[in-house]
């Protein structure tokens, strides 16, 4: 043919969805073009004469629109920073910058198209068979191979724009807004159900939109009826998944504010009505630009007024193909030949020395010049959502497509997925389905309510389960047309041909799953919607079996790919701060992120904070400390179960320290618990363990001992916690606590009192000594935290009060030799290793980790024990602070004996101090250790007799 055909815009069409009064300018491949509001990118490009929109993955063959909808494997484009945009679906917007993908260096002249000439050597899976020797060259080959990655380009500066989420609790969700889906939604709503109707495309109506004027009038009428019936209509939205108990995910793309919104709906009933997806035909040249499916041609003509060709050949096996012939003729396209598959006619190849179709060779060898080849060979049933409800599709050879396997109580299907019929029949089936879905939803809700303990009692007997009395849709006979006599592309996004599939099957990859994995057929972005059935058919042919025998693959969620932005939503990752944080920030605190919290690490000079606390008095905000309020008669049993030591006899007013272990004996957490009243306790955990220990306690209560009467309330953020430490702490607190007797005899170490602090009632104060100083920890209602903090600072001004941060606290606890769970212990450290074996009471009935700790204690006591020991260590050179994680090795070797777990320069002692885990033969006091420093040099250090480097007798804190 002379002169390459270019598609163009037709005059006004009765069904067009474009607004010719609203012109939109955009650029394509750096060329300025115009389209109309309502255009998809695809229709605008075609109206501008564009025929080649992309290059294929492996061979970089030129590709044009084939299905011209969301699923078109050839229609992926880059729109600004948005890669892999479905141009057959995305609406044109003013100023859009649209570029082709996978082209190098350009769409028109792609150097990698040379791969096409060596294609016979690059069969599916060729890479497994080469680049084996020499191995050192493989990394270089890999680099080249990876430049063939298809798809668009990620702009790493893309902002995370506004994405939102919504929870919904509809009675019925209808997936698909064609005639059957609309009818189902209307009928369900009229039956009293709350209904969401979700349509993937921009308009309700499905195939009615590109049908006759009467079809469109019906679509409009039903749209209005749905509105009147109170159906919530979501267009340009996709039901992407169906999970357990009809947990349905819907991505809404046309939200006015959010880029996308993920709707999570607990649907009592789900109606699946996605219609059918037209299937491409496999023959030589089937991926040439100019080969289009009948639906694509009809949408382009009727909805977008685009003329797809000037001289067409149409291969038709059904009424849709026939309708395409009529549509083409109506708009002045010459139909050179109608190839009727029902009469045994066939197409063997689409040809053309150039990049687009120039002629077609028929099955009988006849060659016909044309610039457009339209195929209408049947459908794929997108049964994905049904598969996600455990349905397995069944092949029907007479109708030449898969159908749903069997009915599921609250997941119904209607429309083309379930059978064929006139529009009236589809609507009637849809209505019956909608009614059934609504009735079942009502009964299902009744059941849920009747079986939910805390729900209001339901009245009346349970209604009978509504039986499925729908008249089934028929199944029209259809020729089985998958592959012609020639080989062609089966998977367009992966560039996999039928020949590749036959070869792979011969190699032994002859089950659908193996074939899929080896050739990557059906694994591309269109997820097999166009490819799966043809893949199965080619495999069946290769194996000499039927399609039923070969079976099909399982469709996994999502139904359509979802952006990470939509899934992530706003990203809710809050940082916790105490109510005193404003003061910290105003007073020079340097913050540290610690787990869920942001808190002051220090206020400028941690060493000075230590010295002031040891000399005068210091206060630290310890609000992140995990706190659980425990109430009930069985709290002692719970405590005994969780901690390794004994809790049945803890007197009211006392505080006890304990460690908790997992079932494997590994230290899980530690902390103190106070008995505030007869049946009232306050437990503290480490800051990082707060959530874990809550879950751990609930786990024991809910699964092992539901008979125990204990109520657990996490109060970590409800109480603001302040530790007052130092020689002057008693004097200070005495000035603010009129009703608590602080006399050491009345309120000794490890005891708790409740009372008023700085005018705030119901405060809890206890005496403990993490820092090694006389200290009181007070817990006040969170709202009064800042008030109490300020009151302490005011009252202590003459006592030398200064705040101290986490770092000073860490130094002081290290000076005292107190370990930190997770720092000085790790995922392997069992309780005996911490030196707290006396706290493990094996004579208790039961506690978490008891069996394992029994072994662990025996092992620990043996001379060959492999368990590490936690010991205090002092470097020989007092100025050397080995970094935490420094390895302790046997002198002169690389044999690891242990490691430094904590290390600091002690301001109190003026020397470096450490805690470390060491093997038994290096744990004896006085042992000289060899430590490998960060720079690889080695130094020596001595194992100390006791954990505490400072005040080992604890005279200061007991005072």
């Amino acid at each position, binding site marked *: 043919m002379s002169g390459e055909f270019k598609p163009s815009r037709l005059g006004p069409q009765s069904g067009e969805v474009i607004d010719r009064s609203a012109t939109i300018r955009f650029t394509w491949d750096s060329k300025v073009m115009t389209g109309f509001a309502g255009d998809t990118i695809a229709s605008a490009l075609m109206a501008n004469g564009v025929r080649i929109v992309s290059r294929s993955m492996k061979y970089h063959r030129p590709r044009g629109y084939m299905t011209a909808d969301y699923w078109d494997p050839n229609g992926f484009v880059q729109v600004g920073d948005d890669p892999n945009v479905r141009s057959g679906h995305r609406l044109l917007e003013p100023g859009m910058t649209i570029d082709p993908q996978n082209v190098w260096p350009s769409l028109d002249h792609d150097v990698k198209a040379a791969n096409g000439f060596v294609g016979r050597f690059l069969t599916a899976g060729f890479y497994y068979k080469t680049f084996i020797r020499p191995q050192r060259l493989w990394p270089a080959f890999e680099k080249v191979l990876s430049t063939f990655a298809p798809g668009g380009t*990620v702009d790493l500066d893309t902002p995370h724009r506004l994405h939102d989420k919504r929870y919904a609790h509809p009675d019925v969700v209808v997936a698909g807004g064609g005639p059957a889906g609309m009818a189902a939604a209307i009928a369900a709503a009229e039956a009293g159900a709350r209904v969401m109707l979700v349509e993937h495309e921009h308009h309700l109506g499905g195939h009615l939109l590109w049908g006759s004027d009467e079809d469109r009038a019906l679509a409009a009428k039903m749209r209005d009826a749905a509105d009147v019936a109170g159906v919530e209509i979501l267009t340009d939205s996709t039901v992407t998944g169906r999970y357990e108990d009809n947990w349905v995910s819907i991505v809404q793309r046309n939200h006015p504010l959010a880029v996308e919104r993920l709707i999570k709906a607990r649907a009592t009933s789900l109606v699946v009505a996605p219609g059918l997806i037209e299937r491409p035909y496999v023959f030589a040249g089937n991926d040439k630009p100019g080969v289009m499916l009948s639906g694509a041609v009809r949408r382009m003509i009727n909805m977008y007024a685009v003329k797809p060709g000037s001289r067409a050949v149409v291969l038709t096996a059904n009424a849709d193909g026939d309708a395409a012939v009529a549509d083409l003729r109506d708009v002045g396209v010459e139909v050179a030949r109608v190839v009727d598959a029902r009469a045994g006619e066939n197409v063997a190849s689409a040809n053309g020395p150039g990049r687009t179709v120039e002629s077609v060779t028929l099955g009988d060898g006849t060659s016909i010049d044309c610039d457009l080849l339209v195929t209408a060979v049947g459908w794929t049933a997108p049964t994905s959502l049904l598969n996600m409800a455990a349905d397995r599709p069944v092949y029907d050879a007479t109708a030449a497509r898969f159908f749903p396997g069997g009915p599921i109580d609250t997941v119904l299907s209607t429309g083309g997925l379930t059978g064929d019929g006139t529009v009236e029949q589809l609507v009637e089936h849809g209505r019956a389905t909608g009614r059934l879905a609504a009735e079942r939803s009502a009964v299902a809700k009744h059941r849920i309510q009747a079986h939910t303990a805390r729900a209001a009692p339901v009245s009346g007997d349970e209604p009978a389960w509504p039986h499925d009395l729908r008249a089934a849709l028929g199944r029209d006979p259809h020729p089985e047309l998958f592959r012609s006599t020639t080989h062609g592309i089966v998977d367009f996004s992966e560039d996999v041909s039928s020949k590749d599939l036959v070869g792979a099957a011969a*190699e032994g990859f002859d089950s659908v799953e193996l074939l899929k994995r080896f050739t990557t057929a059906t694994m591309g972005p269109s997820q097999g919607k166009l490819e799966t059935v043809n893949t199965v058919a080619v495999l069946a042919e290769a194996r000499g079996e039927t399609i039923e025998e070969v079976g099909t693959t399982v469709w996994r*969620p999502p139904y359509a790919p979802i952006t990470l932005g939509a899934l992530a939503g706003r990203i809710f990752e809050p940082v916790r701060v105490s109510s005193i944080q404003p003061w910290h920030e105003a007073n020079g605190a340097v913050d540290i992120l610690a787990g869920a919290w942001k808190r002051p690490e220090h206020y400028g000079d941690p060493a000075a904070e230590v010295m002031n606390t040891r000399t005068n008095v210091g206060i630290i905000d310890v609000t992140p400390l995990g706190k659980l309020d425990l109430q009930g008669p069985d709290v002692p049993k719970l405590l005994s179960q969780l901690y390794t030591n004994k809790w049945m006899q803890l007197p009211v007013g006392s505080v006890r320290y304990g460690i908790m272990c997992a079932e494997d004996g590994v230290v899980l957490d530690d902390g103190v618990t106070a008995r505030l009243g007869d049946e009232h306790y306050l437990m503290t955990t480490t800051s990082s363990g707060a959530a874990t220990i809550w879950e751990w306690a609930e786990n024991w209560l809910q699964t092992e001992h539901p008979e125990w009467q204990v109520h657990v309330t996490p109060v970590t953020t409800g109480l603001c916690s302040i530790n007052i430490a130092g020689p002057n702490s008693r004097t200070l607190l005495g000035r603010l606590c009129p009703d608590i007797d602080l006399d050491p005899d009345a309120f000794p170490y490890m005891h708790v009192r409740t009372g008023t602090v700085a005018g705030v009632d119901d405060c809890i104060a206890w005496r403990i000594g993490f820092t090694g100083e006389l200290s009181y920890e007070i817990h006040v209602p969170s709202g009064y935290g800042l008030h109490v903090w300020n009151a302490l600072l005011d009252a202590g001004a003459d006592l030398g009060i200064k705040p101290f941060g986490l770092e000073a606290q860490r130094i002081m606890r290290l000076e005292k030799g107190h370990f930190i769970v997770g720092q000085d212990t790790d995922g392997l450290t069992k309780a005996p290793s911490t030196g707290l074996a006396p706290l493990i009471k094996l004579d208790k009935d039961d506690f978490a980790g008891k069996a394992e700790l*029994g072994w662990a204690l025996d092992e620990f006591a043996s001379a060959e024990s492999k368990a590490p020991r936690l010991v205090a260590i002092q470097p020989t050179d007092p100025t050397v602070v080995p970094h935490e994680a420094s390895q302790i090795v046997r002198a002169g070797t690389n044999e690891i004996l242990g490691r430094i777990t904590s290390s600091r320069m002690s301001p109190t002692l003026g020397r470096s101090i450490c805690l470390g885990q060491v093997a038994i033969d290096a744990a004896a006091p006085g042992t000289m250790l060899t430590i490998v420093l960060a720079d690889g040099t080695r130094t020596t250090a001595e194992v100390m007799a006791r954990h505490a480097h400072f005040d080992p007798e604890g005279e200061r804190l007991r005072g």
Partner: protein
Amino acid sequence: MTLFQSLRGSMKSNAVSRPPRYSAAGLLVKGVKQESWPRVWRDVPLKKSYDVVIVGGGVHGLATAYYLAANHGITNVAIVDKSYLGSGGSGRNTAIVRSNYLTPEGVAFYDRSLELYNSMAVDLNINVMFSERGHMTLAHTDSALRTMHWRAEVNKLQNIDSSVIDPAEVKKLAPSLDTSSDPRYPILGALYHPPGGTIRHDAVVWGYARAADHLGVEMHQKAEVLDILVEGGDGPDGKGSGGRVTGVRTNRGDISAPIVVNCTAGWATLISDMAGVKLPISTRPLQAAVTEPVKVFLPTVVVSGSLHVYVSQTDRGELVFGASVDPFNTYSVRGSLEFTEELAGHVLELMPGISRMRLLRQWAGLCDMTPDYSPVMGFTPVEGFFCDVGWGTYGFKAGPVSGEQMAECIATQQTPKLIEPFKLSRFSTGELVGEKGAAAVGH
């Protein structure tokens, strides 16, 4: 053992004729002649008896069969799988390999695995696409950073290439990561392990299957084991402790065999139950997902323990994500919506620029968890019944070395030193393995 001395003598003839080797030249010749390649493994009828029957056609079962044949001359071996080869964990994992473990035992074990992976392409004559692209474990907190330092220090002393790098170096290796202080969980540093990387998991399955087939091993797909035949045990039907295995019952009939090896995952306890052997294993799903392809931008494997995510980009341009195991027991391999939401949120915390990438597919695999996060390997109380199970979330990394060691265990009837810590009896003697800390830190 005498059984195998006799086997080795008699079974040499089992090997099949040498098939064409994979090479570029081979591709060229086949391309010119337009010939197809011979079958990767033969399709042969199931016999009535074998010397060894291996249950489970994943990497572990196939590797065990291959090394039985290659290293010990035991070739009258059948692998039976209820589905297709590689249909379980072998085809569902995220294909990450590394050796920067924490305990000397863990390091020695996985380092051997990495060695075998490294030479696999040549050994098995198939390109398994081992991509030594480096493996980065991010630290978002002080304590995580301390753990990274610990691992690096241990690894240095064991000559494993592993070090802690700062955010600037992290940025250089993976520019898509947000190393600023803006994120909720800022990146404070990372443990960088250059020898770690990814491998094409299906190619490993097919490579072992093909190589084992060449040596005479038979692969039987869609052959489901319905029972394990045991006699003389002290349990019901003569099963259990003290018994001796005599074969397996399949949906295609009984097979007699003096050695039966359980190399399954997900159903390991059910298979062992058939022999009367109880395993302390619970089965949990681990979910994974993959995006649509985009041009390659992420050159290394990135792991974040705090954010429960690991990610790498395939040569095809897809991002492959994995997470931690779900906190409940199930045999279902269906994915959940919550997983994808949490995953996406965390991934965008790490790489905020990829919000427009689209999640293409999600799936789950089954993980057999033991109390100490370590496998169960070797002998069981039933004579002739061996286990290589309980691989949790890291079975793929250990596939080659497990096969090698299991083969040695079966052929020599001695537990090799490398797998001695993983014996089943440890659960009743309190000798649990201490790799929990290391295995639990992620991939």
